[in-house]
Every structure is written in C-alpha cells, then in structure tokens.
C-alpha cells in the first residue's frame, strides 16, 4: 500500500478499503457448489460477438458472455521498432483490466494477473497466425476486460475476441481460434465456469483450438484432476469449441455483409 502516490493520475486518499458487509454470502467460504439455474453443466454461457466496433483499429471485436465483457482491437501489421531484423513477424498481446471490472477495484499497476492472461492468449493465437508473411512487422493485439466473471472465462473469451479481431483486420491465418474452459467440481465436469463456480472447483482447464483444422493450440490446466478427468475435460471443451467456431464464423460473415 506504500508509495501509491502517482503524479500522473488524480489521487484519492492514501488508503481505502472495499466495503465490509454484515452478512457475507455463505458460498464464498463453503465449498459446496450451487447448482446452475439457467443452463446445464455441459452448456456454455450465451455468446454475443460483434466484430468491427472500434473504428480506429485495423480490426476489432467485442464479446459478451453473460457478465464477462471484453473489447479487443488489432493494430498492424506495423513496423517493428528498436528490434533487429526478423524474418517472422511478432505477435504482441497486451491485456488490461478496467479498474471497475472486478469485485475489488483494480488500481493501475498493482498485480500481474493481466500479464499471465496476455501470455495465455498469445500462446493460443500464435499457431494460427501466418507470421512468416509479415517480416519486420509487429501485430499488436490489445484486450480490455470491462467486466470479469472468472479468470478462465476471461482467457477463453479473450482468445475468441482476439482471433475474431485478427480476422476482422485481414491478417493471414491458418484458422480461427476458439477457446473454452471446464472445471472439475466434485465428480462432475462443468463447462464454462463462472467465478463462483471455479472457486469451488478441484481443477480447471482452458483449451484453445482451431476446430476447422482439428488442432489444439494451447491448453492451460491448474488444480487437481485425474488423467481421465483431464481427458474428459478436453473432450467437453473441444466439443464446445466447435460450436463456438460457427458463432464466430457467422459473426464475421454478418459483419462482412454489413460492410459491403
């Protein structure tokens, strides 16, 4: 909490804390999952995807899956500065949380969670982009999380938005990347967990793949799960990724029709 004074911003009091409530909801402490009301455990949250909203960017996408809201823009290919000659292009991914995106306020430059999400998204996208077509160039992918509901959902939705934005920018790719998360809760596999659900999970998996080519581009597993549970998670995720692929393709098609 020390030296939070930043002369480049408007500063508030030295120290402030989020409000403390008398009756904290029980489920943040207990480990019993609350049954889903509006969807089955094998269902993902409905996706709203809109390419091309950010007119200043070469390509962009906005994705909303219930409470998770993410905007993504792509700039480039543009000249790589201050780097040695490189035959392959560089894919640069930056993720930022809006200060109001989580339960607690995200003061600028306080933690490194955004960087780990950026790495996960970059790894998911790298095998899909034909970087050898862009020597000496950088493709910048900027992601802003406006509202977060589970870090796994942020990575998955962020990767979908980023891949859509790359396609919207006309960057050469091998295929569209889609991504889905699953959690092992008690003995079951719950697809696309919310924050609350992943708090009660034994382990989670985020799987990114190119369904059109049948290739997995990234998988990120944390927590405890048996190999058979892991394989079951992969199966569940790759099935949903195929569904998401048609949503993304349709979204891109619609926006391309609107433009002409």
């Amino acid at each position, binding site marked *: 909490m020390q030296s939070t004074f930043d002369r*480049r*911003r*408007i*500063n*508030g*009091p030295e*120290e*402030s*804390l*989020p*409000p*403390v*409530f*008398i*009756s904290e909801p029980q489920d943040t402490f207990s480990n019993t999952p609350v049954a889903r009301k509006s969807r089955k455990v094998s269902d993902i949250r409905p996706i709203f995807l809109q390419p091309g*909203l*950010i*007119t*200043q*960017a070469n390509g962009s996408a906005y994705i909303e899956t219930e*409470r998770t*809201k993410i*905007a*993504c*823009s792509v*700039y480039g290919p543009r000249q790589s500065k201050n780097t040695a000659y490189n035959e392959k292009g560089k894919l640069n991914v*930056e993720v*930022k949380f*809006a*200060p*109001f*995106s*989580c*339960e607690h*306020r995200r003061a*600028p430059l306080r933690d490194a969670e955004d960087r780990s999400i950026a790495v996960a998204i970059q790894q998911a996208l790298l095998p899909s982009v034909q970087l050898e077509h862009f020597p000496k160039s950088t493709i*910048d992918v*900027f*992601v*802003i999380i*406006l*509202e*977060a509901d589970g870090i796994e959902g942020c990575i998955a939705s962020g990767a979908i938005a980023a891949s859509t934005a790359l396609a919207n920018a006309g960057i050469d790719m091998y295929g569209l990347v889609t991504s889905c998360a699953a959690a092992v809760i008690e003995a079951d596999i719950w697809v696309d967990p919310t924050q609350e659900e992943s708090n009660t999970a034994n382990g989670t998996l985020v799987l990114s793949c190119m369904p059109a080519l049948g290739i997995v581009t990234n998988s990120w597993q944390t927590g405890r799960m048996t190999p058979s549970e892991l394989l079951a998670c992969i199966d569940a995720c790759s099935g949903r990724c195929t569904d998401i692929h048609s949503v993304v393709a349709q979204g891109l098609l619609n926006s391309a029709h609107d433009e*002409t």
Partner: protein
Amino acid sequence: MASARPSPIIPTATAGKTSSHVAQKEANKAAIFQRLHPRIYLERFLEEKIRPDGRSIAQNDEGDNAWRNVEVNVGSITTASGSALVRIGNTTVVCGVKAEICEPDLDNPSEGFLVPNVDLPALCSPKFKPGPPTEEAQVLSEKLNEVLGNGMLPLSSLCIHSGKSAWVLYVDATVINYDGNVFDATLLAMVCALKNVMLPHASYDPDVNRTICTRPGVDPTKPSRKLVIQEDLVPYGFSFGVFACSHILPDPSASEEPLLDTSISIILDSHAQVLAVSQLGAGVDTEYEASGPDLDDTPARKADTLAECISLARNRLAILLNKVYDTMN
C-alpha cells in the same frame, strides 16, 4: 499539389449505388488523398458546406445535424457501484464508479473523496502506446477533476462518521474508441455513472473502529441510497474547433481534431448557465472574414466566436438533456 486534383471526393456512404468495384476504387482514392493531404481534404468538404462524415456546417445553427448522435446506456457493469456507456458518433467511453471506504482527510474531517481518472489505452487509437498515462490523458483527467469538483456532488454527503469514516468514489473512465471529442463523451459518461450509483447503507461502529455495510435488500430499515446530486450544478460539456480561422466545427472528430487552430469547450449546467469556458487559440478571425471572398455576411458570423459557441451549446443542451433523461428513466 494542385496538379493532381481528383474529382470531388465522394464519401464512402454514398458509394453503394454505382457498381461496387468502381465505388471501392473511388473510396480507396479518397482515403489515400485524406491520408496524404488531410488539410486540403477537409477544406474541400467545407467549401461544399459539409463535413467529411456528412454533417452540415453550423452556420445557420438550426440543426441538430451539426452534432453526432449521442447514445447513453447506464448500469450494464454489475461489478461497479454505478456505470455508464456513452457513444458520441464512433467515440465510445465506458465509465464505472467503485465506492470504497477510507479515513477522511484531517483538514476536512466530514468530507469524502471524488477521484475521477481517464484512461486512454492503446486499444482505442493507433496514436497511443501501452504504458503509463499519456500527457493527453493526464490533461484530460485534470480538466474533468476541475469540472466535477464544482459542487455537483457535495463531498459532505459522502461522510459516514466525521473524522473516522467516509466514502471515496473512484470514477474511472476507459475510452474504447477514440474518434474525437473525448472530453464531452467522458464528462457525460462520468455524470451518468455517478447518477447511476447506489451506495449500500453504512454505519460506523466506534467500539471496533470499523465501518459495516448492509447489502441492499437484506434489511428494509437500512436501504441503499442514491448519491445526493445537485441537479442545478450537473455539468455538460460542448466542444468546438475552429478550422482555418473561419469555420466553427462543433463536436470535432478524430480526423478533424489535429487540424484545428483553436479548441473551445463550453460547460453548461442543466439550466443552460455557463459553468466554465476554455478557449485555446485565437478563434474566428473577423478581419479575415470581412475580406474573405466567398463567405456570406450574415450577422452571426461577425459575432464573437465564444458567444457564438455558447449559443450553439445552449441549443444543443436541450436535445442532449432529453436524450439523457430518456435513458435514465
């Protein structure tokens, strides 16, 4: 420069009628010309009494057409105490308010804090890079802090227990799409987000030196409340640019902004009284106008630039207020 005069530039919007291939070519030509000669591009449009995005010029200040469309959407972000999304044309700003509890300042023991900040992330425009706030963001935050600190929200209403506990409202705005006139959009987003805030009931317990809040809906005797906002003092911003000492352009877009000699911001309250005015630059040159060959001699053009902007802003305020009230209720 004059040798390569292309035929009058056709804005992309009207291009759909001819065969799409030819239209695409024309649009590309126009885009390249704009990129190479932005100033001449804008001049040619203004000669035809129209702006590059199809708006009319403010000369006979009747029109709502001189301004871009405004959309306001409040309360869509559930993690914030209050939030608003504002779009002016393509410019998009999201603002969220986070309420936290702190100890009041020793000098003002019965006042809370209002902390507005703007972020211009690399996402919103190619001219920004990732990293600490740019100079533009710092200036913008400072300007908004001054305008919002004018008493619209009495800081004493944020006090929970004098000297011990008070609310601090972090008003953070993030620009998603930077297409000019970010100041007006951000101010509107901040005002609408503040109007949307619900503060939980809070009481200070001196025995344990802690402030305890009640979740809304748990105890009907301890309801959450809206902020105490002085409706008379709510600021609304209206920005103008002056191009080539001769044209007043309300609500400048990102392609016009770098070409402007003067930028003017008028801040009005809801009764159209002027709260603040800033003018950077000289304004319309009346000398130039009198001798200018092709400008008509209407009395309004001869008047002082600032006075004209204020009257344009007042005309616009009525329309804007209608819009805001529509979405807030």
